[in-house]
């Protein structure tokens, strides 16, 4: 049963990732992105990281994608839907090199996986990704990155407020 859900999540994630870049309407794109994030959360859950799956759904699929949908609605999407674009030369060359990158990276990754085939993925330790263990690690080994990230978030909030407010006295 787990295996079926795992492969369904993988296939749905790949399909909705392709749909993100193929659909014309940006709102539909954002919704396909939410679908990809949910499939990734399911994979995290199957790997035993329940807290991370919850955070993924709440922060990514909830907060960030909500923000993106708001900004898409603030900008104009009508002309985006109507227009048809031709691919330019640099885009075709770029796609070609991304495909080469993909093939080479998969080859490289598979070559270095020869010892992993017989891995028994039922042998997960009991409470490996639990909130207890994460909190213990977060406040002992990772306490400096934790503080740095909190300052970064504060700076991000200040920057976003400063950028998005209307400038009244400074004429530009």
């Amino acid at each position, binding site marked *: 049963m787990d*295996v079926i859900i*795992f492969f369904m999540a*993988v296939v749905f*994630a*790949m399909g909705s*990732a*392709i749909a*993100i*870049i193929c659909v014309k309407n940006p709102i539909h*794109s*954002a919704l396909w*992105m939410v679908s*990809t994030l949910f499939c*990734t959360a399911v*994979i995290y859950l199957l*790997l035993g*990281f329940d807290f*991370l799956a919850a*955070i*993924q759904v709440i922060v*990514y699929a909830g907060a*960030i994608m909500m*923000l*993106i949908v*708001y*900004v*898409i609605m*603030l*900008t104009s999407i009508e*002309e985006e839907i109507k227009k048809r674009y031709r691919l330019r030369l*640099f*885009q075709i060359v*770029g*796609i070609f090199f*991304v*495909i080469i*990158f*993909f093939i080479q990276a998969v080859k490289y*990754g598979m070559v270095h*996986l020869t010892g*992993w085939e017989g*891995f028994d*993925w039922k042998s997960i*330790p009991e409470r*490996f*990704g639990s909130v207890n263990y*994460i909190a213990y*690690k*977060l406040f002992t*080994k*990772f306490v400096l990155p934790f503080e740095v*990230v909190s300052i*970064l*978030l504060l*700076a*991000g909030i200040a*920057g*976003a407020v400063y*950028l*998005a407010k209307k400038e009244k006295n400074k004429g530009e």
Partner: protein
Amino acid sequence: MHSPAVLIFLSLFLFSVGAVGVIVRRNLIIVFMCIELMLNSANLMLVAFSHFLKNIDGMMFVLFVLAIAAAEAGVALALFVVLFRQKGNIDTIKLNLLKH
């Protein structure tokens, strides 16, 4: 069961799709979403190896990447709103101020 192989393949696939989206799409918000997709694929690889190596450190990095992605989303979307207010569009081909 080749679970690590499948996860690596999925992660590389998501990364490649995100890179193609960054190159192909012209709406800045969709480009930003594709960058988020690439971050997400890196997260997936980190979590997969954190699971297979029985080491929680990779997962902690994913938490920090999530926080940084949230901060990045706030600032980038504020920038897009300002850009749209000033220029009237957010097309990556038309925004070529540095060229002239």
